[in-house]
């Protein structure tokens, strides 16, 4: 089967290029990428085994890689399965997901890893890489069979959301991983500082009377893990960075040459602890949602004459939520605006390598309860792109760099060849409309986890088609089938430099 994706804005982050053109896919690999003028495929001359996908006005990019996905299978299939989780991934534009090991049982032996890999081959919609358990049962007591796990194909070791409290054990684990050349992914949380936590410790937790997870709990553990990474020489990958202090620690560690990489979630880049207040008005300010800053002068004129669907507000409004909405409970918790600003800056300047969803689907019963006892986690795969695109729409990040953080960045963390669209590359491709306005409806998620604070929010940016190894694994509303042009390419002015 051959696909010709026509008239798209091609972003190839590996080569930092954005051009308008066509991409030809044949037998699972990219066959040809051409400037618009170079390809003159004619509808009438095309046979049955060729499909033309009209991508006018949309972005064509390498498929995204998610470094941090909880697929929940085996053991918690009421929350998610490999089938539903990878379909959610496909709908979010992800063609590779790295499955976190906090399942039941955990992949702490090769047999469990092979079971997950077999399930993924049989039922997965996108590629699944398995992260092996760092300690047996992710319980932080004894090392998992790390040599066996790495031979079985684990791409990293981690205990998921469980911090390894014992520094001595962490050192041994890192020493093993360093020798195996496999990264260790850590969730940084000093458990002595987070007992009974419900949300970020700060102004909002004080007002709401909820026990806090201070920023220092993350930073203290990160400082320890950086020291241990220097001691052992392991490649340390820091999961879901959430505080300004953590960004500063990472920046300093990188500057002195520590082998360290880091990821940040879409929600930590865009939402704050203010979301736990929901519709309650913060005392100091009367007007609730802060709109986006005015667009730069160059694009202002263009926006004023934009068609109506473009002026649907794309900023986020926490007042749509009830107070103490458990969908806002996530680990690490949503932090403050100062943290959000530092995370965006860290992402922009390369201190943070990748955007990872931290996709943590939960069953209804785990969320329909009191805030302090609700299971933490956000079902994030299907809103990730639109959420991080708010950074582009607000002018805080350029589109090519953002796409790199979803493709190139994670590939580098995994030590893979750069995600790219050059001929011969595996045809993992996403096509998205960065401007398409939509309203989040969690009941329409492919994921079994409907736990999102974004339900009902107006976002901009929608995945239209996802192709994994040359096969269409997700397609929205017959995208690209009609011959008529959908959008003018000039719509992308301002997003592409």
């Amino acid at each position, binding site marked *: 089967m051959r696909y010709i994706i026509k008239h798209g804005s091609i972003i190839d982050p590996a080569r930092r290029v954005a051009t308008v053109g066509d991409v030809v896919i044949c037998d699972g690999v990219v066959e040809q990428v051409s400037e618009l003028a170079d390809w003159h495929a004619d509808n009438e001359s095309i046979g049955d085994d060729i499909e033309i996908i009209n991508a006018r006005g949309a972005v064509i990019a390498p498929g995204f890689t998610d470094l941090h996905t909880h697929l929940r299978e085996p053991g918690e299939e009421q929350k998610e399965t490999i089938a539903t989780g990878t379909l959610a991934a496909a709908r979010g534009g992800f063609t590779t997901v790295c499955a976190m090991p906090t399942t039941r049982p955990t992949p702490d032996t090769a047999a469990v890893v092979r079971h997950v890999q077999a399930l993924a081959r049989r039922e997965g919609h996108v590629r699944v890489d398995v992260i092996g358990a760092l300690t047996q049962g992710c319980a932080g007591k004894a090392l998992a069979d790390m040599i066996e796990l790495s031979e079985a194909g684990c791409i990293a070791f981690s205990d998921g959301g469980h911090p390894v409290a014992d520094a001595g054990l962490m050192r041994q684990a890192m020493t093993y991983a360093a020798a195996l050349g496999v990264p260790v992914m850590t969730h940084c949380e000093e458990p002595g500082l987070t007992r009974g936590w419900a949300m970020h410790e700060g102004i909002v*937790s004080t007002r709401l009377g*909820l026990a806090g997870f201070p920023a220092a709990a993350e930073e203290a553990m990160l400082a320890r893990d950086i020291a241990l990474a220097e001691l052992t020489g392991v490649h340390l990958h820091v999961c879901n960075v959430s505080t300004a202090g953590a960004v500063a620690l990472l920046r300093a560690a990188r500057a002195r040459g520590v082998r360290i990489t880091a990821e940040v979630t879409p929600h930590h880049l865009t939402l704050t602890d203010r979301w736990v207040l929901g519709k309650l008005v913060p005392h100091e300010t009367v007007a609730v949602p802060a709109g986006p800053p005015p667009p730069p002068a160059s694009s202002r004129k263009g926006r004023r004459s934009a068609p109506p669907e473009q002026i649907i507000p794309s900023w986020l409004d926490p007042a749509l939520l009830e107070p*103490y909405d458990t969908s806002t409970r996530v680990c690490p918790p949503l932090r403050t605006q100062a943290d959000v600003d530092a995370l965006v800056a860290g992402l922009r300047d390369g201190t943070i390598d990748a955007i990872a969803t931290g996709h943590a689907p939960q069953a209804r019963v785990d969320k329909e309860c*009191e805030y302090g006892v609700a299971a933490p986690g956000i079902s994030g795969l299907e809103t990730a792109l639109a959420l991080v695109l708010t950074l582009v729409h607000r002018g805080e990040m350029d589109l090519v760099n953002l796409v790199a953080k979803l493709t190139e960045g994670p590939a580098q963390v995994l030590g893979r060849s750069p995600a790219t669209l050059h001929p011969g590359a595996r045809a993992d491709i996403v096509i998205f409309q960065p401007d398409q306005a939509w309203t989040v409806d969690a009941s329409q998620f492919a994921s079994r986890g409907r736990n999102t604070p974004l339900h009902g929010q107006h976002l901009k940016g929608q995945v239209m088609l996802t192709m994994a190894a040359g096969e269409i694994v997700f397609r929205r509303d017959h995208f690209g089938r009609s011959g008529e042009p959908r959008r003018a390419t000039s719509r992308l002015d301002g997003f592409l430099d």
Partner: protein
Amino acid sequence: MEMVSRRRRHVIDLDEMTAAEIEEILELTESMKEVLAREIKQVPTLRGRTVVNMFFEDSTRTRISFELAAKALSANVVSFSARGSSVEKGESLIDTVRTLQALGAEMVVIRHSQAGAPYLVAQHFAGAVINAGDGRHAHPTQALLDLFTIRERLDRIRGLKVVIVGDILHSRVARSDLWGLTRLGAHVTLCAPPTLLGPAHFWTATWPQISISHRLDEALEGADVVMVLRLQKERMQAGLLPSLREYSRAYALTPERLERLGAETLIMHPGPMNEGVEIWPEAATAPNSVIEAQVTNGVAVRMALLYWLAG
């Protein structure tokens, strides 16, 4: 004012309540107190209405106060106590509330150990919800009875200096009092050991008008009202305090401090008291102590709220 009262369906905290609404409830409390002074302490206002008191945390006092309030208004009142969160019990709070609704409950009063639980109840219940204390978050009826008691004795709230001393961090009473007192124009000083308060700006960001102190003797200068909070013994076990002896020396309302305060300063405590820990018996029973009046006024305030919400 009537319009506003008709529209509000629940009382979960005072943070969303306007000064006018608070005043309206305090005025209603006045009339309810008059009812309670009669020989027959009952009016037919809520005859045929069903009120359910759900107490997921032990509190004999507050429960009895709510029961008496509902009975004085002739409501059908049912109370139940169940310890622990819904998760521990294996039954969800939402399910409990739906069941009560199906049984015909029109108003629920909820006491719960988890902050925010009343908001969850309110989302799944068609009638009115009154918060009788949720975790560390809020205790609006306590705050209203405190306001009523202060105004009853001192004729005003505006401009008064009110010192709240004790375990502020874990206190729902302190938080609701903060909303009520600041909204009605009082100057509030919070006084607590550093571990039972947290950083000052965590408080002043939400309540910019207040003062923060770690030294009780300084805080008490010129105070019109002193509210002493209960110190839970668990705070000691959690390592938040060096010793009870030291806490008492630094933060208790002792006879010496009582003497320095003068006879005009109101002494308040939401109860139950740990006498000899945060307050000395001499202070609790002093002529300027209004601790018993707080309890009495609690019934009238809760009657006023039930009436106000039943609209």
